[in-house]
């Protein structure tokens, strides 16, 4: 396996220009999507089968009462422990040699288990192709020596592309700098490979707690309870089975109205 690639999205540098969102749509030829009225600049409201990069506009007042507009470019996290990948029954979702997670469109049969298995609500179903869609980490580009289109288009280096270990070091330094500058809630999200989901290959620097950005505080791998749930089912089966067994072994009439 090649060295793991990653995208580091530093929201402290994001200016909400949405060049990433447009570059993504253009490069991946994602097509027209009629937006809903959101009452803000936010469009679309969430990832869809045609929106793989999405800038979030979060208005929240600072403690001083001044308005703050937190801006964040969100994307598929390419989790080291990926719920979608584990859920996929056809093997269409796979991990590339660079550590990214991709959906083979020729294999996906559209069961949508991956959709319900993404802790971030990234994977989306496309009605036209009948398959699941999500950010490919610009698979075609990274296999030809280029970075993802979103990172390329970002004017402020809010989205950085590179080797994961390098980026994590850089990100850690950046958090320290920001903290020294007075951003006391500055924190990394998904950078720690010992943290949740084994670390995210698209990780973030946030200026507020994750939930402010509609991110789960502690995302969990959906498949973590398969064994427990299965054992409890087996227990249930034993009780039911015994009940039925007793009912049928009962030589007396089971019921009075025979």
């Amino acid at each position, binding site marked *: 396996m090649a060295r793991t690639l990653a995208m580091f999205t530093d929201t402290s540098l994001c200016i909400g220009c949405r060049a990433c969102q447009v570059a993504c749509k253009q490069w991946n030829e994602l097509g027209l999507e009629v937006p809903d009225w959101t009452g803000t600049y936010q469009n679309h409201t969430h990832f869809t089968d045609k929106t793989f990069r999405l800038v979030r506009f979060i208005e929240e007042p600072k403690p001083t009462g001044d308005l703050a507009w937190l801006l964040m470019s969100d994307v598929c996290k390419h989790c080291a422990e990926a719920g979608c990948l584990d859920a996929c029954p056809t093997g269409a979702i796979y991990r590339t040699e660079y550590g990214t997670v991709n959906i083979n469109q020729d294999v996906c049969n559209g069961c949508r288990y991956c959709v319900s298995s993404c802790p971030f609500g990234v994977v989306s179903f496309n009605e036209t*192709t009948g398959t699941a869609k999500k950010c490919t980490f610009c698979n075609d580009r990274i296999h030809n020596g280029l970075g993802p289109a979103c990172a390329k288009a970002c004017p402020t280096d809010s989205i950085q592309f590179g080797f994961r270990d390098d980026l994590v070091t850089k990100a850690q330094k950046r958090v320290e700098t920001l903290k020294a500058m007075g951003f006391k809630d500055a924190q990394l999200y998904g950078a720690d490979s010992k943290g949740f989901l084994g670390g995210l290959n698209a990780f973030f620097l946030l200026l507020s707690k994750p939930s402010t950005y509609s991110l789960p505080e502690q995302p969990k791998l959906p498949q973590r309870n398969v064994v427990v749930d299965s054992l409890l089912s087996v227990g249930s089966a034993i009780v039911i089975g015994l009940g039925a067994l007793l009912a049928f072994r009962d030589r007396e009439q089971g019921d009075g109205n025979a």
Partner: protein
Amino acid sequence: MLKTPDWELMIVWYFFLGGIAGGAYFTAAIADNFGTVRDRAVARTGYLLSLPLVGMCGMLLIADLGVPRRFLNMLAAFKFWDPMSIGAWMVGVFGLFTFVSSVLSFTSSEKMAALRRKIGLVGLLFGFFLASYTGVLISNSAMPFWSDARLMGALFLASGASTGMAAVSLLMFVTGATAGEGWGKVKKADRFSMIFELLVLAAFLFMLGSAAKPITTGHFAPLFWGGLVAMGLVIPLVLDLVGHRVRALAPIAAVLVLVGGFILRYVVLMSIQA
């Protein structure tokens, strides 16, 4: 900001019919193996009911795919930790069991019957699986409520049993196969299953706490409390206990159990996706 898989009515039906098929089959297999000769009608009814149901299950499952013709892609991979993967395999394997058991349920040869009983003993494991795996499948997702419900599989299994037995009982009533003592035993087993289901449901809600809100409060609450708990479980039990001398009440109770089983799958799936 999670995304729902849009598993709607087709999957509700699949979950519901899969439960009945599993429940009917293992009821049949238990009756076949542990009951008397006079319980054979139960076994035959159960086997014969499970066969078309599992066929319908397969069709629903395929029809709900984004690319139905790629159904076989499921069989190109086998992931033992993945309920969807195993589930797809098991529907096929279980289908084979129901087919063989159904064919053998017509045999008059005692040798073949013995074979059928042995097959049934193995097949009932797959019946249990089919009735419960759908619960494990959704409880191993990222969806709130579903993923919080550790007893989803257990509950689905109990419901599969109660509805499977109710279906067998109803079918026996309709086909006039109530003569032997089997019908009574099915009803007894069903009663047990329903009581157990109520207990599991209580534990299920207790363990979920506020995570159960999508079904216990709001839009789906009347359906859950009225449709499942009252109409689908408590009333059939009362009917069964109070009116066990009135023959006509039995099929009504069975129908209510079936409706309740459908409502269970409906509220669980739709409350999150609505």
